């Protein structure tokens, strides 16, 4: 951000700060974002390395028996792509609990930073006695969250893209367009969860409430999808889980973004942001 520790108060320099709240949120969490970005690259690189070590004939052996339907929850496919394939393996890396945990960390941390963390810390009092509308606060903080999610998702996609590009048999199975499509879909999932999380932050007083909501949405969402895939009696429940609409393995193979699923994920996210704006406009902002 544009405020280096100069040791000088800065005098009466012209007002020049733009998107101050946006930069403040990112600046305060820059180390966490850097760690998550590196972690994401390392994890997806590991997935690539694992995929590279499996010869194609072993994959085909593994696909002789169809895995249980619940495994779709882990393969990132609606059933069209087997876990025992290169796209399936890479897709599994994009629905792995580690990938989910890192995405949720970004959403939870920057979601809490939107409003609730400042309320809890008492710093909201310094910010909101200045000519900052509540809409501006939410807009800049939402933008910070989106930036964080884009960064982490892009890191994962870049790692996979490099792996695919340098491994001929992966390149044959997965088009680079598919990697990009899966990345966009991953971002859609993160933003789908971010919307309701922002609403909790806008109404909440403690960052713990926001982190809790993030974990609940992520973990419960994944669990519901898993149970719905495993147990036909409640299969209808899969439609309420965001993970049902997040099928990176299918995107990796097809090379195209499932527009309907992406629209639904983003729609939920936008509805959450709208709810956050409504709640924030009506609440008291004091520690």
């Amino acid at each position, binding site marked *: 951000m544009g*405020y280096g520790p100069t040791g*000088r108060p800065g*005098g009466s320099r*012209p007002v020049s700060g733009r998107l101050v709240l946006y930069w*403040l949120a990112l600046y305060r969490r820059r180390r966490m974002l850097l760690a998550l970005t590196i972690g994401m690259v390392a994890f997806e690189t590991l997935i690539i390395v694992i995929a590279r070590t499996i010869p194609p004939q072993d994959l085909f052996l593994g696909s002789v028996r169809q895995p249980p339907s619940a495994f779709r929850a882990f393969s990132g496919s609606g059933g069209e792509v087997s876990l025992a394939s290169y796209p399936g393996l890479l897709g599994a890396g994009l629905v792995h609990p580690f990938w989910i945990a890192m995405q949720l960390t970004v959403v939870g941390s920057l979601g809490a930073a939107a409003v609730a963390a400042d309320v809890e810390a008492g710093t909201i*009092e310094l910010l909101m006695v*200045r000519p900052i509308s509540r809409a501006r606060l939410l807009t800049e903080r939402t933008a910070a969250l989106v930036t964080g999610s884009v960064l982490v998702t892009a890191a994962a996609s870049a790692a996979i893209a490099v792996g695919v590009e340098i491994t001929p048999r992966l390149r044959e199975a997965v088009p680079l367009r598919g990697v990009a499509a899966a990345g966009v879909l991953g971002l859609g999932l993160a933003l789908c969860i971010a919307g309701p999380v922002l609403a909790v932050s806008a109404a909440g007083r403690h960052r713990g409430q926001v982190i809790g909501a993030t974990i609940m949405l992520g973990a419960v969402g994944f669990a519901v999808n898993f149970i719905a895939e495993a147990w036909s009696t409640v299969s209808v429940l899969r439609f309420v889980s965001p993970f049902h609409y997040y099928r990176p393995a299918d995107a990796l193979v097809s090379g195209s973004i499932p527009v309907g699923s992406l629209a639904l994920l983003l729609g939920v996210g936008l509805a959450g942001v709208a709810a956050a704006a409504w709640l924030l406009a009506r609440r*008291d902002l*004091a520690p």
Partner: protein
Amino acid sequence: MVAVIELTALTKRYGATVGIEQLDLEVEAGEVFGFLGPNGAGKTTTIRCMVGLLSPTAGTARVLGLDPIADHARLTPEIGYLPGELRLYGELTGAQHLALLGDLQGRPTPRRDELCERLELTGRDLGRLVRHYSHGMKQKLGLVQALQHDPEVVILDEPTEGLDPLVQETFFALVREASEAGRTVFLSSHVLAEVQRACGRVAIVRAGRLVTVEAVAALREARARRVRLTFPDGSDHAAVPVEARWSPTWSGDELRLLIHPDEIVPALRRLLQLPATDVAVEEAGLDEAFLAFYRQAEPDAKARPAKAPAWGTDPPADQAEAGP
């Protein structure tokens, strides 16, 4: 004169808990106005309504003729505010804070350097992370951020908390200068001497209600007199006829009384009939004066415990200032 701050029947409740109730107040342009009350009286709640952090449950608050919530964008550039419990971002330096908050204020900050110098915030201090600041240094930084843009209305919640006596002197000089420059200063405190020193008028609040608004000079005049009578060794204390309303306390053979100024002459005539060996009469301290004022002002004073709440100490749980 123009009212810069107008509170009309201002009420803020948090569920069943009353923050402030039916508060009416007017502060005129150029005034240094004290807002006095024990901890938990509703001072901070009132101020937060004035700066648009809290929306009133009933009544209205207007500052510079504007509604603090509806006209937030127009009003806040004209306000300088120091919160009662100043919280800063520990991972930013002092300089970063001043730049950040100045940018958010949306106005130039012509007084920043001067204020830093006068409040003894050196370049080295400003280059340090705020998490390493002492309470006093944070408070100094809070004062700079509140005043650096030379605001029309300055609202300070417990501003001298943590400041050393020398810096307090500077602070009072800044308040005086602001008033002379036509700025309006609203200063909340539970430190009576502070209000007496800085303010022309003072509002006293207790348990969310306005007790009185008076000129500081008038309150000073209403101050009780402390009378000390020394009796010979071995006097029978019980035999000394004094009124309970004079709050009699014994220290050895010395009897101490607090007597309202209207009553002091007849009381002294009576007391001088007693076999005292020495008599001393002096103005009571401000604390005692304000407590006496409370007792007079409250119609149900007799129903309350004789001991008034301690100024500057934590309030009982049932009087604690409620959060939203």
